[in-house]
């Protein structure tokens, strides 16, 4: 079953097509890798799917239901989509704990005004911080974390939303080997939980290890898709992406 589909998706920036008529499907409970050279439109695709850029034309279908010609960023949570960012965007002058809690608590202005985080929220935050190895840093301001720890905090914040579709935008960049193992184990656990993972990544070893399906983009278009071992051996992919 497709958790997410995009149909003829187009994004133009001042006449330049960053995403050019893309039609794709992301299957539920699978890790789909999105690869392509820099500027191929991977992050733009993520930004379109999470409402951070308006869609020029085309539609997005979430969970096989309504077609969305427009996605606003605050609707994304209700559609069951969450993300991490290519350039880490944690809330730096807030504690690690608050970075997680803000993804757990009420989205309503009125309800949030009369809500203090409950024992349930605290336990859930503890569970997430232990999962990403940051429980002992919970009182630290996020700005005091190392780059890798910030990446892990972003992953934790995404997990806190309980979204069914998680977009990871280069989550491995700048991580130490131990952290790489931790992130990979989280990805596998999420897949086992039935979540749909969209993984933008440049490291082909990771793509081969984790992904069930790979999409290759070039100049905003779909270049190839299929099983990793087949796609990554495709001559036109090697030429476009690896330059060999």
């Amino acid at each position, binding site marked *: 079953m497709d958790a997410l589909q995009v149909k003829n998706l187009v994004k133009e920036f001042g006449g330049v097509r960053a995403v050019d008529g893309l039609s794709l499907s992301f299957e539920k409970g699978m890790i789909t890798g999105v690869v392509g050279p820099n500027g191929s439109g991977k992050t733009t695709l993520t930004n379109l799917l999470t409402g951070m850029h308006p869609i020029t034309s085309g539609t997005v279908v979430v969970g096989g239901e309504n077609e969305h010609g427009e996605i606003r960023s605050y609707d994304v949570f209700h559609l069951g989509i969450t993300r991490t960012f290519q350039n880490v965007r944690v809330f730096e002058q807030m504690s690690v704990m608050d970075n997680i809690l803000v993804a757990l*608590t009420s989205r309503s202005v009125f309800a949030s005004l009369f809500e203090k985080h409950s024992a349930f929220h605290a336990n859930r935050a503890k569970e997430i911080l232990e999962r990403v190895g940051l429980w002992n840093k919970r009182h630290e301001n996020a700005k005091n974390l190392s780059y890798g720890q910030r990446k892990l905090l972003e992953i934790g914040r995404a997990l806190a939303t309980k979204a069914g579709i998680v977009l990871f935008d280069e989550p491995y960049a700048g991580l130490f080997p131990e952290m790489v193992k931790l992130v990979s184990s989280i990805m596998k656990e999420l897949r086992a939980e039935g979540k749909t993972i969209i993984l933008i990544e440049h490291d082909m070893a990771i793509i081969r290890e984790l992904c069930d399906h790979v999409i290759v983009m070039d100049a905003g278009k779909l270049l190839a898709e299929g099983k990793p071992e087949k796609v990554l051996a495709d001559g036109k992919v090697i030429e476009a992406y690896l330059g060999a």
Partner: protein
Amino acid sequence: MEYLLHLAILFSIFGIFALSLDLIAGYTGLFSLAQAAFYGIGAYTTALLMADAGVNFFVALVLGITLAAVVAFVIGFVFSGLRGDYYILGTVGFNFIIFTVFLNWQSLTGGPLGVAGIARPELFGFSFSSSGSFFLLSLATLAVAYGVSWFIVRSSFGRVLRAIREDEEAIAAFGYHTLYFKLAIFVISAGMAACGGALLASYLSFIDPNTFGITSSIFLLSIIVLGGLGSLRGPVLGALVLILLPEALRFVGFPDDIAAELRQVLYGLLLVFLMLYRPQGFLGEFKL
């Protein structure tokens, strides 16, 4: 004693203004230079209703808060698309508009002559006419403003405000309609400022437009930057320091003809040194 009570009353009222501004600037990251406009709306509404229509202070206060909140709702909506420097400039423009209204709508506001004869509050036959009783009233109001601010910043709502301050686009991606949160805190902040404005009008018994100009908004921003953005104790400390400092400087012995200007220079120097060596202010938790 009367002099000390006068300073204590001014401290309490400016503490309310500072707390109200800190909610939007320190906690939400919206650097508004329009706070004097909102406490001006509270002050003028209260003053006109009391002086011209004989309305009780506490009724006029509620109406002043309501009017400031309604104006803040409209202005907050208009400003919702502005960020950073553009937001600051937008609020400066708004403060100028309100100041110009106070100055030129002479049939209503008295123009440059202001409004005189504003009575002290009365409640169930008790008049807060003495400095002691007025101080208790203003201190109690400051305590309520502090309590309301504490309740807000400790709530999940307060956590979202801080996330908006840090990265509005990122928190929106987690399902928060940030416009609603910004509007809500802008309205609450304006209402709180208007409450302080009503007290100021009643205490001084006379108001004119100069009390509500852009320099007053800058002075308030200086208070919260000095005390520390994003903390509740910081703005209160900032108000205490900047209300008492000019009084302390009276004893330094500056020549009378330039004393006021030298005090302004000292304020400026204090802010410059803070920005250089302690940008988070005395008690701040948020660094610009």
